């Protein structure tokens, strides 16, 4: 098994850098031009999810909803498995909400149950901003901890990797116009947690291999990185595979409300495993190689 992974990851890394940079640029462009496809959590209005006990078509529902005159152009979408979603551009008041529920129960389906989300987007935006700050400051915390336990180069590389993963997931959601709701924020946080965990495990191996290795020439450190990655490869794949299975099943079988969450998780897990191997580790090497070669007293000023 362990001989299977003897690739020159370091050499390959420049292709992966290119790949990541292209994706990042595509993400920046997509975010700048189109932004994110915000769900109701981030747009002012009301979203009514109806669970039906009998099949109804849009044509049956539309006249009832429109007759109530609740909001301009309510959009109705019928999903599979007996669900229906009605979106109002304005926020429904309590009375309007009740009107709708009553009319729906009376005229269409007496057993229907409702999930109403009414949002003033400022609060969702605030949570988003708050999460962003939390992530940035958490990165700072990680840098401090990893610098103490490892060295600053590991810290920088792991933080770059986790920000890379979070940003790429956001980019993918922007590019493919996937809907971003509040659970998405949680998914991004989860991915950051995973990515970090994954990266640190590989770094730990690099560090322990460094301890026993003699570094005579430049290429030696690259060898250590390659060796460390291949040593941890089985573990990386097995772990990501098991968590991926869990998310895939949640995506397929789980409730509608966490579908986007599961999707974001799957994308993020893939990026998390990828970045730990192909971005974080080679990046550490780049930083390491720029260390002044053989300065007898290792200069600490760079930290």
């Amino acid at each position, binding site marked *: 098994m362990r001989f299977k992974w003897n690739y020159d990851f370091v050499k390959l890394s420049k292709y992966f850098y290119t790949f990541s940079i292209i994706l990042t640029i595509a993400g920046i462009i997509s975010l700048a031009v189109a932004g994110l496809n915000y769900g109701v959590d981030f747009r002012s209005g009301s979203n009514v999810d109806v*669970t039906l006990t009998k099949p109804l078509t849009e044509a049956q529902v539309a006249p009832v909803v429109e007759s109530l005159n609740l909001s301009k152009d309510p959009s109705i979408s019928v999903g599979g498995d007996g669900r229906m979603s009605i979106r109002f551009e304005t926020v429904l008041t*309590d009375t309007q909400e009740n009107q709708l529920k009553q009319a729906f129960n009376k005229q269409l389906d007496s057993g229907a*149950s*409702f*999930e*109403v*989300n*009414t*949002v*003033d987007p*400022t*609060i*969702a935006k605030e*949570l988003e901003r*708050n*999460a962003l700050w*939390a*992530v940035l*400051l*958490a*990165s700072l*915390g*990680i840098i401090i*901890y*990893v610098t103490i336990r*490892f060295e600053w180069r590991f810290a920088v590389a792991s933080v770059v990797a986790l920000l890379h993963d979070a940003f790429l997931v956001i980019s993918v959601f922007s590019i493919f116009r996937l809907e971003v709701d*509040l*659970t998405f*924020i*949680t998914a991004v*946080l*989860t991915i950051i*947690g995973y990515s*970090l*965990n994954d990266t*640190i*495990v590989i770094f*730990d191996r690099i560090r*322990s291999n460094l301890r026993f290795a003699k570094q005579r020439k430049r290429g030696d450190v690259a060898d250590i990185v390659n060796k460390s990655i291949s*040593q*941890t490869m*089985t*573990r990386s794949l*097995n*772990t990501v*595979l*098991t*968590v991926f*299975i*869990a998310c895939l*099943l*949640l995506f397929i*079988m*789980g*409730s*509608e*409300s*966490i579908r986007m*969450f599961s999707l974001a*998780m799957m994308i993020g897990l893939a990026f998390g495993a990828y970045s730990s191997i192909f971005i974080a580790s080679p990046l550490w090497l780049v930083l390491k190689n720029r260390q002044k070669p053989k300065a007898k007293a290792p200069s600490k000023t760079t930290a």
Partner: protein
Amino acid sequence: MNRIISFVVVILVVAGIIGTTTPLFKDVRLGLDLKGGFEILYQATPTTQGEAVTRESLTQTARSLEQRANALGTSEPEITTEGTDRIRLRIAGVTDEATVRKTMKEPAELTFRSMDGCSTDASKQSGIPSAEKQGQDTSKSKAADKTSSTDSKSSDSNAVSAQTEGLPQGVTVTPDTGAAGTTATENTYANEDPAKLYCKIELTGDDFKENGASVVYNSLQQPEITIEVKDAKKFGEITKRLINQPLGIFLNGQLLSAPTVRAELTDGKASISGSYTVQEAQQLKDQINLGALPLKLNEIYSQSVGASLGQQSLNETLKAGVVASIIILIFMILVYRIPGLIAGFSIITYVWLTVMIFVAGDFTLTLPGIAAFILGVGMAVDSNIITYERIKDEIRNGKSISSAFKAGSRSSFGTIMDAQLTTIIAAAVMFALGTGAVRGFALVLIFNILVSIVTNVFFSRFLLSLLVKGRLVNKPEYFGVKESERDAL
């Protein structure tokens, strides 16, 4: 042999504990997204311009909201203050959401109004006191019915203390609610908007002491509401002017009660008595207290989930979780054989322990919580995989099973700790700085990691060590290593 026995005993005991306590799983408090109910985030603003929302007024408003929700008989309302000017309200499993929501929102503008100077007042005020006798009679029997013996006992002392505090005897009085509706006054005004009738605003919510209203019982066991105002002089002036006139208590323009002023009150305290049931008195007290807060509440976010929809989400998610767990278990056993089996057992223990912490700590499980849970399971699996991969490496390098186990456990420990600690630090920062969902997620994550270290590092290793030392697991195959992969030393 001893070790084998201890291994079997440990497994049986733990499995037994898990098996017998599993019914407790139903005690996990489920969030709104899984159970149904609604959540409202209020933004509090001062009712009077220029005043600031203080910490104190905010918590008091929250407390009043809680009392109000409790009074409505909702199950475990969860009310928390957030930031400097927000109150989050969560009520699960409500059937009549509209009523609850309306009542919760209602508390806003409390006014005491008089008919002083209004066009219609002069001719009609005389009719009001006639309600008194009848009203008090009915209330007496009502109160006796509704008050349980323990209630009246404890409230006896309340009544005494209130009286010794020097509330003027027989002071204010007599509302015309309920039974009093038959009086001449009510009939005369029946068709008129009370807000127009009581045209002069004498006192607003600001004039009352915060949480100054309380329910006491008089010597006849009738509930009375005592109130306190901030400015005794102003109150004295008003009561002097309005003697024998009704003073309407309005909440958001709606007349709650209209007691008649019986005396001039100079000490800033008054009691309102009459035909209230205990419940009505409590309600009025809450309304006055809530209105007396200098804060206005606006809904800025609300979410409501139908009970059956929440249940459906939970069922689907659980089913997915169970299937995922089984697949992971099979995977672990196929790849890591005996240790994989132990990993499976310790992961089950981990899940069980985490759920138990939710039950014991009375935490609420929400969808983001489940997210953190998944990450936790992922890391739990990872801890085991890291250890077993290390052990496999050592076996391949030609070490004996027991020394491979020792070396593998030791070297993987540092790795796992570094990875987990880094994540805990990230979670701690998120917890410290985040709000709402971010905070909940971070907290669950921290707990998960701690539990994971206990079960998937220490417990799992302990179990495996019993097997290894007991020489029961003594072949590389048991670890998923082929003999051909081994290097001779």
